[in-house]
C-alpha cells in the first residue's frame, strides 16, 4: 500500500469510527430490582377508561388498576368479594344489596363510598359516555329510560348510606354478579372521571392493586403497587408492561431475560415446549372458533342441508393438529369445555366426506353442480389464512368451491356486520368469540338470539323462534340446574338441526412465564385475568436485566 493510499484508508476508517464506537461501548447491566415483573403487551391499551374496556389489552390494565364490587376467583371462576365485602339477593332475585368493604381508598387518597359506585354505574349507562359495555347494566331498573334521556337518574341504582349500595333489576338475571365482575363494572372516583379534558385516559385512577406510575406510549407502562390497597399491598413492587408488537423480537427479549411473561409467541408448540419446558404453560379458554354463514342470503339462507354438507366436509382434528399445532381443540358445538352447561353428549359433525356429498346433493347441488364459488372472508393473519386454506381444500374434495378473500380487520368487520336491518357482504367468514363471563348465556344469547342480529354478536343472522324462546326462558330462571337443560336444547337445535355455522374448535391459551414467578393461575377467561396482585418473584434470576 502506498503512503497516499494508506492515508486515504486512514481517513476513510476515521469516518467509520462512529459505527465501531457505537458497538463497542455498551452500558453496563443495571442491578436487578426486587419484585418487579416485566411483561409484554402487544400494544398500548386502547381504552384505559373501564367503561369502554372491550378488548383483552384494555382489560389487562383495567383489571390491575381498578376493582369492581365483586370479582372472579381466577381458577374456579366463582364470585368472590372485592369492593363489596358482602351482599344479599332478595328472594325474587331482583334486589341486590351490597355492603362495601371499609377503608377502600382510590389511588388519589380519596375514600371510596357508595356515591362513587352510584356514579360509576350511572356513568356506564350514560348516553353521553356511550359505553361499549352498557349491556352489563342494561338489566337495571330504569336503565332504558335513562339511556333515552327520559329520566335524569337510573331508578334501580341507589346509595342509601356511604357503605351500602342497592341495585334493583327489571327482571331476574342469574348471571348478574358475573357481569359485575367484568372490567367495565369498575368503581371510579367521580372527581377524576368528570374531567372534560379526560386526563384519566393518560393517568387512570382506580382503587385496584396497582397504580399507573408512568406511561410512555408505545414504549412502556410502569404499574406501581398501591400501598393502601384494601386487600393488602401486592407482593410485587412494580409491574413493567413493555409494548412490543413483533412477537419474534419479544421472544428474543424473553430468552434474554428482559421479559418474565408473554402471552403471544412465535414457533410451533413442540419447539417452544422443548426449548422452555418450565416456562411454557397451556390452559383451556372459554372461547369458540368457527366459520360463519350469512343466513340471510342464498345459498345458505333456508338450506340446512348445504350447511350440514360444509360441516361434514371439514376435518377438524387435522385443522387443530396441523394448522394450529394443538393450540385449538376440535369442537362439536358452541359452548367451550368448562362452561356451565357444556354438553359432551352433543353429537355435532364428524369428518365424513361421503356424508358431505350426500347432503350437498340433498341441498340441490349434486357434486357441487349449480353452487357458485363462495368467498371465504378472513382478516390478514398467517394462522387464519392457513386455516382458511385447509378448510378450502376440505370443501374442494367434497365438491364445494371456495375463494379466500383476505382483507384487513376493519374491512373484514364491515363486510361481516352489516346493520341490524341489512346483512353485510360476507357470505362465509371466520369468526371467534370469547366469553366475558362463565355462563352459557355469554355464548348462546349473544350469538344466537335474533335480538342480537348484526353487530351485537349474531353476525350470521341466525333466527329460530324456538331457540329465542328457550334463551329467554333460561334468562328468567335463577337456578342453574333449571337453566342448563334449556341452554343445551337451544345449542342442540342450532348445531344439529340448523347447522347454524361451520363449527370448528375451541381456543386454548398459551403463555410463557419464568419459573421464578410464583402464584400464577391461568383463568379460563383469558390470560389478562392472571391475578397480578397474587404474584411474587421467588428468587432473582441470574439473567441480565434489561430496560425497555
Amino acid at each position, binding site marked *: 500500500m502506498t503512503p497516499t493510499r494508506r492515508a486515504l484508508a486512514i481517513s476513510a476508517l476515521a469516518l467509520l469510527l462512529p459505527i465501531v464506537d457505537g458497538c463497542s461501548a455498551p452500558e453496563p447491566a443495571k442491578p436487578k430490582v426486587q419484585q418487579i415483573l416485566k411483561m409484554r403487551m402487544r400494544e398500548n391499551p386502547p381504552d384505559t377508561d373501564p367503561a369502554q374496556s372491550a378488548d383483552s389489552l384494555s382489560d389487562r390494565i383495567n383489571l390491575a388498576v381498578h376493582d369492581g364490587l365483586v370479582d372472579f376467583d381466577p381458577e374456579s371462576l366463582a364470585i368472590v368479594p372485592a369492593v363489596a365485602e358482602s351482599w344479599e339477593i332478595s328472594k325474587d332475585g331482583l334486589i341486590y344489596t351490597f355492603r362495601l368493604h371499609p377503608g377502600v381508598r382510590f389511588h388519589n387518597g380519596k375514600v371510596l363510598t357508595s356515591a362513587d359506585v352510584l356514579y360509576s354505574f350511572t356513568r356506564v349507562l350514560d348516553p353521553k359516555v356511550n359505553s361499549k359495555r352498557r349491556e352489563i347494566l342494561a338489566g337495571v331498573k330504569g336503565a332504558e329510560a335513562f339511556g333515552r334521556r327520559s329520566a335524569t337518574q337510573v331508578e334501580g341504582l341507589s346509595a342509601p348510606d356511604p357503605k351500602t349500595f342497592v341495585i334493583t333489576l327489571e327482571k331476574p338475571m342469574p348471571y348478574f354478579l358475573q357481569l359485575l365482575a367484568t372490567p367495565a363494572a369498575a368503581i371510579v372516583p367521580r372527581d377524576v372521571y368528570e374531567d372534560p379534558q379526560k386526563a384519566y385516559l393518560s393517568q387512570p385512577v382506580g382503587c385496584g392493586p396497582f397504580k399507573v406510575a408512568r406511561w410512555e406510549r408505545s414504549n412502556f407502562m410502569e404499574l406501581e403497587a398501591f400501598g393502601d390497597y384494601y386487600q393488602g399491598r401486592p407482593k410485587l413492587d412494580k409491574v413493567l408492561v413493555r409494548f412490543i408488537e413483533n412477537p419474534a423480537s419479544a421472544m428474543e427479549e424473553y430468552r434474554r431475560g428482559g421479559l418474565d411473561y408473554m402471552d403471544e409467541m412465535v414457533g410451533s408448540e413442540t419447539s417452544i415446549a422443548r426449548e422452555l419446558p418450565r416456562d411454557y404453560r397451556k390452559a383451556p379458554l372459554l372461547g369458540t372458533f368457527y366459520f360463519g354463514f350469512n343466513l340471510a342470503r342464498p345459498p345458505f339462507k333456508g338450506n340446512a342441508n348445504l350447511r350440514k354438507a360444509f360441516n361434514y366436509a371439514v376435518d377438524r382434528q387435522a385443522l387443530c393438529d396441523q394448522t394450529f399445532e394443538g393450540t385449538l381443540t376440535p369442537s362439536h358445538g358452541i359452548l367451550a369445555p368448562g362452561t356451565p352447561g357444556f354438553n359432551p353428549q352433543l353429537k355435532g359433525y364428524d369428518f365424513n366426506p361421503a356424508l358431505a356429498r350426500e347432503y350437498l346433493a340433498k341441498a340441490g347441488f349434486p357434486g357441487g353442480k349449480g353452487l357458485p364459488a363462495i368467498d371465504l372472508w378472513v382478516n390478514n393473519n398467517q394462522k387464519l389464512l392457513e386455516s382458511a386454506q385447509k378448510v378450502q381444500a376440505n370443501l374442494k374434495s367434497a365438491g364445494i368451491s371456495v375463494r379466500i378473500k383476505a382483507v384487513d380487520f376493519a374491512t373484514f368487520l364491515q363486510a361481516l356486520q352489516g346493520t341490524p336491518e341489512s346483512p353485510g357482504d360476507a357470505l362465509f367468514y371466520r369468526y371467534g368469540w370469547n366469553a366475558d363471563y362463565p355462563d352459557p348465556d355469554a355464548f348462546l344469547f*349473544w350469538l344466537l338470539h335474533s335480538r342480537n342480529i348484526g353487530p351485537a354478536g349474531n353476525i350470521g343472522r341466525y333466527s329460530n323462534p324456538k331457540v329465542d324462546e328457550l334463551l329467554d326462558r333460561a334468562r328468567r330462571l335463577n337456578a342453574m340446574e333449571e337453566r342448563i337443560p334449556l341452554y343445551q336444547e337451544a345449542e342442540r337445535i342450532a348445531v344439529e338441526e340448523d347447522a347454524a355455522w361451520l363449527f370448528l374448535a375451541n381456543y386454548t391459551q398459551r403463555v410463557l412465564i419464568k419459573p421464578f414467578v410464583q402464584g400464577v393461575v391461568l383463568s379460563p377467561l383469558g390470560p389478562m385475568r392472571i391475578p397480578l396482585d397474587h404474584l411474587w418473584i421467588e428468587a432473582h434470576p441470574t439473567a441480565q436485566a434489561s430496560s425497555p
Partner: protein
Amino acid sequence: MKSYLLRRLFGILPVLWAVATLIWIILFALPGDPAAMLAGGFRSDPQVLERVRAEWGLNDSAGAQYLRYLARVACGDLGTSYRQGRPVSRILAETFPATAILALCSMLLAACAGVALGLISAAWARRWPDDLISFICLGLISLPVFWLGMMLILLFASRLGWLPVLGYGMEGLRIPATQIRLPELNHLVLPSLTLALFSLGAICRVTRASLLEVLRQRYILSSRARGMRPVSVHLRAALRNALIPVVTVLGIDFAALLGGAVATEFVFAWPGLGKTIVHGIADRDLPVVEGGVLCLCLAFVLVNLAVDLCYALVDPRVRLQ
C-alpha cells in the same frame, strides 16, 4: 437568498393542501367503518355505533366532512384521535421525535460510512477492494430491513450480549422545556445500524460513481500535474465537487427514513411515528393518519429545501435564486 427562501416556504402551502386532500380522499374511499372499530369490534351495540357516528360526524355527507377537515387543518388543528381520545398534535409530538432521532442517527452513520467506503472504492476502482465493497453494498441494498434487524438482534444482543434486544430505554435524557425524551444510547445503536446499513449501499455507490466522474475532469489532472498529493486530490479537490449527487441521495434517504422506518420500529419496538400511522390505518383512526401524513409531508418538503440550500454550501457555483 431571502426571497428564494420565502418563495420556497410559500410554495409549501399548495403541496400541503394537495397532500391533505389526497390523503383524505384515500382514507374516505377505504373500506371499513371507523365507527365499528370504535364501538367494540366484533361485538358492538347498535345504539353505541350510532352515537359514535354522530359524535365524530361520520354520518355527514362527504363534502361536509371534507370541508370541516380542511377548515380544521387550516387553523392548525389536526383533530382528536378516535381511538385514543387525545389531540393528534400531542400524539405526533410524542412519536415524531423518536422517529426523527432514529432517522438522524441512521443518516449520520450511513453518510460517514457510505462516503468513506465510496472513497475507498473510487481510489481502488476496479480492483479487489472496490469489488469487495460493491459486493457488500449490493448485498446491503438487497437485504430486507426486517430480516437485517432480526439478524443484528441475534448477533449483538442474543449471542454477544453487547446491546439490548429492543426498546427505547427508560432513563434517556429529557430535553429541557419539552416533552421530548432522548433514547438511551445503547438502545439506539441496533435500530440506527439497521437503517444505516440499508442506506449505506446507495450512498457508497453514488459517491464512488460521482468521484470517478470528477476524477476524470481536467482540473484534477492539472492538480496532479502541479504535484498535489493524491490524498489531497481525492479529499480536497475531488470529493467536494462529487458531493452534489451524494447530498441529493442523503436528503431523499433521510426524508424517506422519517416515514419509512416502520419495519425497523416494528422489529425494535421503537415508539415512532411510522408505527403509529400504520396502527392508525388498521384501526381506521383517520385523524391520526391524516395528521401523521401531513407531518411527514412537511418534514419531507423541509428536508428537500435544506438539501437545496446545502447545494450552495457544497458547490459555490450553485446560486439560489
